[in-house]
């Protein structure tokens, strides 16, 4: 057994008494890394660092080939890293929503930046991982950018009513239910219009504050949202709200990926994340004497 192969190396990142385990995806020219920005992936929810459908492995390989050293870490208790986790998903999501993993992410970003002599780190997180990335970005000078894949800004309900659960399952199996679902979503949309721009009661206000700190500091952020056939309709538009409150220095780019599922592990999602993140990396963190810089001129980041 070996700890490194041509394109990857297994690493541990000590943070206090915790050792985070992870994978380093090498670029083609590793010896010349000092001017480069690294890319750090953190876990999505409880998934190991490979992520759903091994999508994080695919993206990390791609970004390393594109010239950005990439790292995937298991946060404490997740994947191969040691540590305690709560028993239920609800408890874990509450920890994530409170920023529990942020100190580990920010310290890992610092440790990796120094160890690999990088100019800084971009943190990529999906779903709950995006929440940790935002919190960490707000507290670390080593984090130069954040990519948030399908972030959410609300706190989870403690108990989903059983009847809602049953209806959700029924809708997936019944043709008539599909039509009723259309009506339901329209009614929900009307509710949002009536409420206006007021934040919903279950908004994660601490997260919103941290997001605004990042945005107002001019930290580049890329948000990619999976937009399946019905997603985003009938829900409060947090992105519109955040764009309105971000201030003039904001460098937040938001994209909606039609046809991608929430996990982005499907073909559409995988390809779109790769495409948009590579464009954004190249425009936001250009490398000196890089032939890929030619792409920067072509980039049109859509600030929706």
């Amino acid at each position, binding site marked *: *057994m*070996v*700890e*490194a*192969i041509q*394109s*990857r190396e*297994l690493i541990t990142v000590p943070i206090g008494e915790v050792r985070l*385990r992870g*994978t380093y995806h090498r670029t083609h020219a590793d010896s010349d890394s000092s001017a480069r920005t690294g890319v750090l992936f953190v876990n999505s*929810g*409880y*998934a*190991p*660092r*490979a*992520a*759903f*459908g*091994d*999508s994080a*492995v695919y993206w990390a390989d791609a970004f390393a080939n594109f010239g950005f050293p990439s790292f995937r870490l298991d946060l404490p*208790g*997740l*994947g*191969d890293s040691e540590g305690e*986790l*709560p*028993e*239920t*998903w*609800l*408890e*874990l999501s509450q920890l994530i929503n409170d920023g529990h993993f942020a100190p580990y992410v920010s310290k890992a970003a610092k440790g990796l930046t120094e160890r690999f002599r990088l100019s800084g780190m971009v943190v990529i997180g999906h779903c709950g991982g995006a929440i940790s990335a935002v919190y960490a970005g707000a507290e670390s000078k080593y984090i130069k950018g954040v990519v948030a894949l399908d972030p959410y800004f609300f706190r989870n309900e403690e108990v989903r009513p059983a009847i809602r659960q049953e209806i959700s399952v029924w*809708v*997936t*199996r019944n*043709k008539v239910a*599909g*039509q009723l*679902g259309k009506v339901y979503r329209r009614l929900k949309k009307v509710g949002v219009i009536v409420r206006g721009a007021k934040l919903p009661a279950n908004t994660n206000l601490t997260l919103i504050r941290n997001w605004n700190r990042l945005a107002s500091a001019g930290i580049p952020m890329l948000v990619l949202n999976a937009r*399946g*056939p*019905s997603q985003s309709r009938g829900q409060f538009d947090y992105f519109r709200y955040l764009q309105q409150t971000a201030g003039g220095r904001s460098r937040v780019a938001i994209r909606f990926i039609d046809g991608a*599922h929430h*996990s982005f*592990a*499907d*073909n559409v999602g*995988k390809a779109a994340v790769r495409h948009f993140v590579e464009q954004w990396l190249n425009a936001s963190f250009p490398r000196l004497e890089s032939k890929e810089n030619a792409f920067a001129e072509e980039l049109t980041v859509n600030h929706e």
Partner: protein
Amino acid sequence: MASQRYWQVSATVDINPVEQAGYFEVPGAHLYTVVHQVSAPLARVLLIGAFASERHTSYLPWVRWARYLAARGTECIRFDYRGMGESTGSFEEMSFSSWAEDVELLVAWLDRRGPRQPLLLHGLELGALLASQAFTAGVGDALLMWAPPQSANEVLRPALLRRIAVDNMFRYGNERKGVAEYLAQLDREPLEVEGYQWSSRLWRDSFHLELPAGAKVAGTIASDCKRPVRTVPLDKCPEPLVKGSISVLVDPDLSGLFADNFQWITTALVISAERQ
């Protein structure tokens, strides 16, 4: 087995488990492998995990189980099949024969590690099929199977149905496609299912990887092979390790399952009193 004995880990034994991750070379790929080393192993367990779609849902309990065993003096090896997880290789080019070869090569490597210790093959879901296949070929001193399906197709079909359900969720009437249409598509080109590119070969081969005929009745392999076998359906487990979707429990308390199975392992494998 010549006799049945129990072993106990003395409090004075320094087990000192260390987790060593590395890449193990196989034809055309490298397997991500984690050895849960102990300083003087009483036995070795090769953990043969679940299929691609179930990898991430079963990962935490699987790691916890490896640590549980290592803390009790049993060296464990867990790995990702080629083309999955942390291992290299293209999933689309793989089928069950590739993953069976992964098992064979790791067993051969364990044999070379020495000193010779009893070897348990422990398979979860699809891994149980691969483990039983190796076991009936003469590999290992005991076989433990958690949630073994009757065939690999029993693993693939629910994953395909989940993919179809998601696709159809917001389609209405005739827009909805059925299983037959997806299978026809799979015949023509690779089909993405839960992030993995399935080939038509994978689907076809899944009908041919079955539990050995005898294994459908617990204990039958044991009488055929004269080595102990245990099947645990996991249906009484508070939270199944393979479940195909996000569940309520992230890190369930499986101490009862672990203790019960560890006890079986200790009785199944004869450990020499005079360990070398």
